[in-house]
Structure formats: C-alpha cells, structure tokens
C-alpha cells in the first residue's frame, strides 16, 4: 500500500472540566489506508468519540495533528462525512431534501441535486419515501437517510459515531448488512466507532481496541474474516476465536475503568 489516507500523528486532547484537566486522548497515532474499514472499540469515555470529532474538525487537538490525504485537518472538514448516533436529520426537510443538502451546499441546482439524492435514496432502499419527513420514519429508516445524506456529499471518509446504537437488535443487524454492502460496493474508507465487538468484527478490516482513559491504542487486530462478508460470518469458528481474544482485552479495560 502507498501512503495512508488518514495519518493521525501523536494526538493529545485534554478538556478543562470542573474537576480539573481531563485527558481524553494521549499520544494517539493511527494510519488508515484508502478503502479500509477500521472499527474502534473501547469502554465509554475512552476518547473514541473525541478522536472522531477531531477528524471531523468539530474540535481541535491540544497537540499533534491529523493529516487527511497529506493535508492537516484544521477546521470543519466536509471530506469526512459524519454519521451521528441520533441521526441528526433536519426535521423540516423531506427525505429527498435532507439527502440533497450536501449537493445544495456545493451549489447544485434543484434538479441536479435531486437526481444525485435519488441515487443514494435508491441505494439504501428508501424509494417511495422521498417526500416523507424524518418524523414519519422509524429509527432504522432515519439512519438510512443519514447514511445516504452523508454519501451524497461524496466524502473521502465516512465517520460513524455508534450509528446503530439506538436501534433494536434486529434493525441493527439489517443496517450492518446494508452498510457492509454499500462499503463493499463503493470502496469507501470508513472509521466506525462502536461498543459492540460483534459489530466491529462484522464490519472491519482492522479493529482497534482503545485503552480506558486516557485513550491510547491498546491493541490492533487485522480482521482476517473473508470478504465479501455476510452476517452469517458471526457463526463461523474464526469469528468466535477473534471475539474471545478481543473480549478479554476489552473486559480488562472496562474493569479497569470501573475501579478508577
């Protein structure tokens, strides 16, 4: 492989809180190559969301830097499309206009942006719901809209902040399947944060276990589960072996963070 698409170099982030300084990320370095799907797992408060927010340019690191395609991320970065846990759809826009928001910001005319939106709406299986408002849709459908909205903006990287955490177990599995399909078809680079080891194993090429606060890379696994992958990968022997390994590590960290 050539040089990395994402190159996080020794990122530190501290927050000032009422109880003094809180170190969320400590000497955090990570390289992600184009087309790679990387999942980060770790206990709550391990700094994984902080890292994602720095990548999106929502917050700036205290020191260190993140390069995206060789350029340092210094402000809000539309090349990193964000999928939020609570969908963050605009309630006053229809599905079509939500998805067309990115193209609209780029100056696309009504016809052009609606055509672009339609492609992604079809891809996530929401044909027929173009004129619905987000409030009329189920959680799973809303997250599909959020996914197609991010994709319609044609980002280089898809950042996912526990996007399926609020969904019920069945819907969650369907959405994982959907994301697998889209990622495999589009070859998008994805950085995906989750609490769920299963989810991380199903989706990732590489899996990063974070240490409890302050967040550092505790371990990196190359996920050698075969691709193209379907959900039934979950019942293979290799999946269970990997799950056991990761689980032992994560459990250590969770226990550690509880006894702090």
């Amino acid at each position: 492989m050539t040089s990395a698409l994402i190159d996080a170099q020794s990122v530190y982030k501290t927050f000032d809180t009422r109880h003094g300084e809180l170190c969320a990320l400590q000497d955090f370095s990570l390289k992600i190559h184009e087309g790679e799907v990387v999942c980060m797992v770790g206990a709550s408060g391990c700094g994984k969301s902080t890292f994602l927010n720095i990548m999106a340019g929502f917050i700036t690191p205290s020191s260190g830097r993140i390069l995206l395609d060789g350029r340092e991320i210094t402000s809000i970065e539309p090349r990193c499309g964000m999928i939020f846990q609570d969908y963050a759809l605009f309630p006053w826009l229809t599905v079509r206009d939500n998805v067309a928001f990115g193209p609209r910001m780029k100056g696309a005319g009504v016809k052009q942006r609606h055509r672009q939106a339609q492609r992604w709406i079809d891809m996530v299986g929401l044909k027929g719901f173009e004129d619905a408002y987000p409030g009329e849709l189920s959680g799973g459908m809303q997250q599909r809209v959020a996914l197609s909205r991010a994709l319609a903006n044609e980002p280089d990287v898809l950042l996912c902040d526990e996007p399926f955490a609020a969904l019920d177990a069945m819907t969650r599995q369907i959405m994982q399947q959907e994301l697998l399909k889209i990622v495999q078809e589009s070859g998008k680079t994805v950085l995906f944060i989750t609490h769920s080891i299963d989810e991380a194993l199903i989706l990732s090429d590489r899996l990063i276990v974070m240490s409890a606060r302050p967040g550092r890379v505790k371990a990196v696994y190359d996920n050698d589960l075969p691709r193209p992958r379907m959900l039934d990968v979950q019942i293979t022997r290799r999946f269970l072996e990997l799950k056991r390994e990761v689980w032992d590590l994560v459990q250590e960290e969770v226990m550690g963070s509880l006894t702090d």
Partner: protein
Amino acid sequence: MIDRTLGLWQTIVIGAAGLLVFLGGWESLVRLGVIDPYFLPAPSQVVTRMVSLASGPEAVLLDDIVVSATRVMTGFVLSTLVGVPVGLVMGMSSLVRAALNPIISIIRPLPALSWIPLSMLWLGIDEQQKYAIVFMGCFASVLVYTTDATMRVSNTLILAARNLGASRLQVIRLVVLPGALQDILSGLKVVLAIAWTCVISAEMVGANSGLGFRIWTAKEWSDTGQVLVGMLSISLTVLILDIMFRGLERLLMPWQRTGRNA
C-alpha cells in the same frame, strides 16, 4: 390513570354543553333577581346590546374592533420585525448576548402602561403612540423568546450542516431559523396576547376610538352591557386571530402536520 382522548365531535358537543350550562346559570341568576343587572346584565341583555352596537344608528362596534386590531397588529408586527432578527443574533453570539442583556433586563420588566406618560408626551394620542405602546410592551418579550428558541436548536444539527459544507450564514438561514421556528411562533402567540393588553390599556387612558375606549366610556355611563360587549369582542377577536395564527403555523411548518411525533 389512562385519560381517553375524545373525538372531534365529542369535544365540540361537550364544550358547547359546558358553555350552555354556564350561560344558562348566569341568565337565571339575573332573572331570579339574585344578581342586579346594573352590576352584571344577563347574557341575553349583552347580546341585545351587542346587536344594537353592531348595527343601527350607533354602529361603532365593528369600527372599534378594526381600529384596535389594526393597532395591535401594527405594533406586534413591528416588534417582531425587529425582535426576531436581533434575537437570532443574540442566540448565536454570546458576545452580542453579553452586550445587550443588561439593557433588555431593564426594559423587559416595565409594564406597557408605564410607557404611557412618556409616549403621550412624545407622540400625543395619535395612532403612532398606540403603536409605540404595543411595540415597547412586546419587543423585549419577542427578543427573549427568540433568543431562547435559537439557543435550544440542537448543536448536533448545526454540526451536521457544517459537516455537509454549510457556511455559518447558511447554518443560520437553513438550520437555526427553521429549527427555532416552532418555539419562536409559540412565543409570538403569547406576545400577541400581551399586545392586546397593551392596546386596551392605552385606549383606556388616552384615545377616542377602539375597544378599550368603548369599555372605558361605557363605565362612565354605567352601561355595563356595553362594558361586557367590549370585553366579549376582545375575546372573540383574539380567538379569531389565534385560529389564523395556527393556520400560519401549519403553513410555515408542514413537517409538524404529518410528523409521527408531532
């Protein structure tokens, strides 16, 4: 306890029944002589007085309603035109908020009535003086409602828009304004009621037309029937304006109409 919600017609029928019992009780208390009609005329007498004020040689009621409503709407719209944009900016910028908050804290607690002496000195008892009273009575409230509504807009939505490439100006126009719209309109509904109290007070103190003036002069003549007609007219006018306002809300916020969680 589970409160069963009623259908539209049930609600109307039960509401009408409640009103009839109330009016019937009042009417019989006057007819039985328990209440002296000099202090409180019966509903039937109020209706008769209303008809005579609305038609015939001294038909002033409709003019009064139009005059008062015009004053209300002019002052209200003026305060909205100034208050909403300034409130949006205050909600977005802590700097502007810090600068303006002390001034608003001084103006806001002042009742509209307290502006009457100064405004009469400056503007006489012309229409402008009525508009000014309404404006001063409403402006600070519009500002505070808009600021609060703006600050309640979800930060995640703003980040999402920025993430999709929106500039700061586009965020205000495309996210903050529609996001705050519902709360702003609820605030404006309250302010509209405040605007009415402003106008009625102003008309009672210095005016020669309008519902406030009509109520006040009726009291001088001990015409309690006319006082009640004036009061009832205020209720009815506010009710109609409220219905119109709701129509406006539905027009401006179509996503609220169909929303599952609306």
